[in-house]
């Protein structure tokens, strides 16, 4: 950077968080533009020993917010505002499928950070953020885009932690994103409404639902994705220690929904609520 002309990030890394339910993928967003992809489960059950959820034989697919992140990165490239889109994901061999989907949507290349077995089971936002930060520095990314949260663990931490580790500004819950000179304007969806901020680059942005509508991969792009490269790295290669600081004690399904009861009048209702100690 350091140029006085408009910012054209060299590449955008999208971190694709691709890991199963209850597992943490490594969000990698590289930038140039990196986005992190996460691969999440569809229907889940808790394992009999309450240690985690069942992932074998369960269909995994790209986390919906990560899809939105990929789409945004590809759109920026189509507008010629950025030069390269790199899709990153952490996890076992299967995450390559998710990276390929991102490539078919228009990413230029992928990085698969291999994390398997027990390491994968305990991989959490902190570990993923460390990996993302390391990759962002290595790839000289200007913009890192992630989904705001994964629908399996709903942590909503990786983007924020990555920014903190890099000491970069962050624009989270983005519903609009535009590059203005060497700054990024982000419209954020917050509890009170919409907040517009301008942040310097390099920066981390997390995608919210209304940022865009992800495209369906076109058939020609699916064929082209076959030729795009996916590099393989290990966390150790990046100098990242992925030991977990958390121990999951127990996972339980939410309690069965109990039947309600009908009352005749509003007074009855208030009475019952008082009895239950709720008012």
């Amino acid at each position, binding site marked *: 950077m350091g140029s006085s002309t408009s910012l054209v990030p060299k590449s955008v890394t999208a971190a694709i968080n691709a890991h199963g339910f209850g597992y943490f993928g490594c969000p990698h967003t590289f930038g140039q533009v990196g986005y992190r992809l996460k691969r999440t489960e569809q229907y889940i059950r808790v394992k009999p020993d309450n240690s985690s959820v069942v992932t074998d034989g369960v269909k995994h697919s790209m986390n919906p917010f990560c899809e939105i992140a990929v789409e945004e990165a590809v759109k920026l490239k189509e507008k010629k505002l950025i030069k390269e889109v790199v899709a990153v994901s952490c996890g076992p061999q299967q995450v390559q499928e998710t990276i*390929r989907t991102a490539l078919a949507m228009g990413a230029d290349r992928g990085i698969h950070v291999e994390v398997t077995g027990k390491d994968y089971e305990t991989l959490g936002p902190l570990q993923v953020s460390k990996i993302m930060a390391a990759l962002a520095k290595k790839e000289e990314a200007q913009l890192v885009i992630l989904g705001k949260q994964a629908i399996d663990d709903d942590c909503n931490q990786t983007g924020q932690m990555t920014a903190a580790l890099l000491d970069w500004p962050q624009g989270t819950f983005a519903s609009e994103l535009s590059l203005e000179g060497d700054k990024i304007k982000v419209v954020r969806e917050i509890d009170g409404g919409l907040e517009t901020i301008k942040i310097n680059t390099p920066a981390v942005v997390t995608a919210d639902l209304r940022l865009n509508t992800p495209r369906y991969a*076109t058939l020609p792009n*699916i*064929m082209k994705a076959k030729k795009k490269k996916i590099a393989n790295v290990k966390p150790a290669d990046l100098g990242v220690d992925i030991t977990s600081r958390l121990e999951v004690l127990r996972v339980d399904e939410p309690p069965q929904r109990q039947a309600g009861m009908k009352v005749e009048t509003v007074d009855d209702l208030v009475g019952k609520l008082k009895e239950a100690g709720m008012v």
Partner: protein
Amino acid sequence: MSPPSPSLFPHFPVFLPPLISNKANKTLGSCLRGCRGLSQLAELPDTHQLLRQTCRDYADRELNPIAARLDKEHSYPAKQIQELGAMGVMAIEVPEELGGAGMDYLAYSLAMEEISRGCASTGVVVSVNNSLYIGPILKFGSEEQKQQWITPFTTGEKVGCFALSEPGNGSDAGAASTTARQDGDEWVLNGTKAWITNSWDASATVVFATTDKKLKHKGISAFLVPMPHPGLSLGKKEDKLGIKASSTANIILEDCRVPLGNMLGPRGAGFKIAMQTLDSGRIGIAAQALGIAQASLDCAADYAHKRTAFGSPIGKLQAIQFKLADMAVAIESARLLTWKASLLRDAKKPFTKEAAMAKLAASEAATFCSHQAIQVLGGMGYVADMPAERHYRDARITEIYEGTSEIQRLVIAGQLLKEYQS
């Protein structure tokens, strides 16, 4: 019509190599070698898996939610066809230089099945454009014809149709009575074509007409006619049992004039062009039938989990389990036949017999599965609240168009007997 019973299925020769003559054995062997390995039938290549998933996502999100309304209102899914065009699905086999997706027939079968699983009407629109309209032009057209008649039809903005059947002949395609006579530098076409899918929404058609009735099927040629066009008019839209969102009507030609350059392929080659085109089209319709069958199975299996009777979900009852198992076997066998036919075609090996087998198996699987799905759903299967009744109505046509099941049996027997001739 009584539904085909499950006992018919064991009779389909799926993967049992028969005791056959040396010549047939050699043909079979070279077919298998040429078919890029049967392993592809067990595990699709990455690109094809991604394609399948993409089409499935599109069907689930964009087609499934509107299929019931499209059926009820008989409305053509113009927006969806355009979106599919943008994805490359309307011209899967067409090379990229001409605006297509540049993929193979296995990809086409996969895409067709997933699209049809969401909406069978949309599926037939896609199939007719790909196999019946673009197919013959891609194979028999001149470079100029390809540019003019294929490229604008790859985006979903324009679709084409295929006009072979007439009120007087469907299966008996050789008896075409639509005529073409040369008048100066034009062909003048006269006659009526019947049952033309996409007719009301198409921008062009491939029409088969005879230049000399005395030559019988050797007198038939293929012509490209734009739509609308002076001398070409459409009959009323047929009010069909199923696939209601696609238009079906007569095409009436009254002194319809087209330039001489609009003949497709050599003079007199029309019948051959039609038959070869239908061979490929059969794979598309087999895939459509698979989609309908699969949607029926999905509906029935889901219901079996949720509906309780006699104290438990009905999925626990053997009577229901046997039905679901029979449905699954019928679908999987037909699917593998369809993939095999696609792989043979992609390897440029003869595939006529396999395509006919696939279409026969898949269409009978569709009617069987949709029939059984209604049975599993009971009363709920009979009302529009559930999609089972629509699948039942959509499935029926797959045993009729692009070659009736009877014609498929004749094609298969013809090929088989050739193999046994020493």
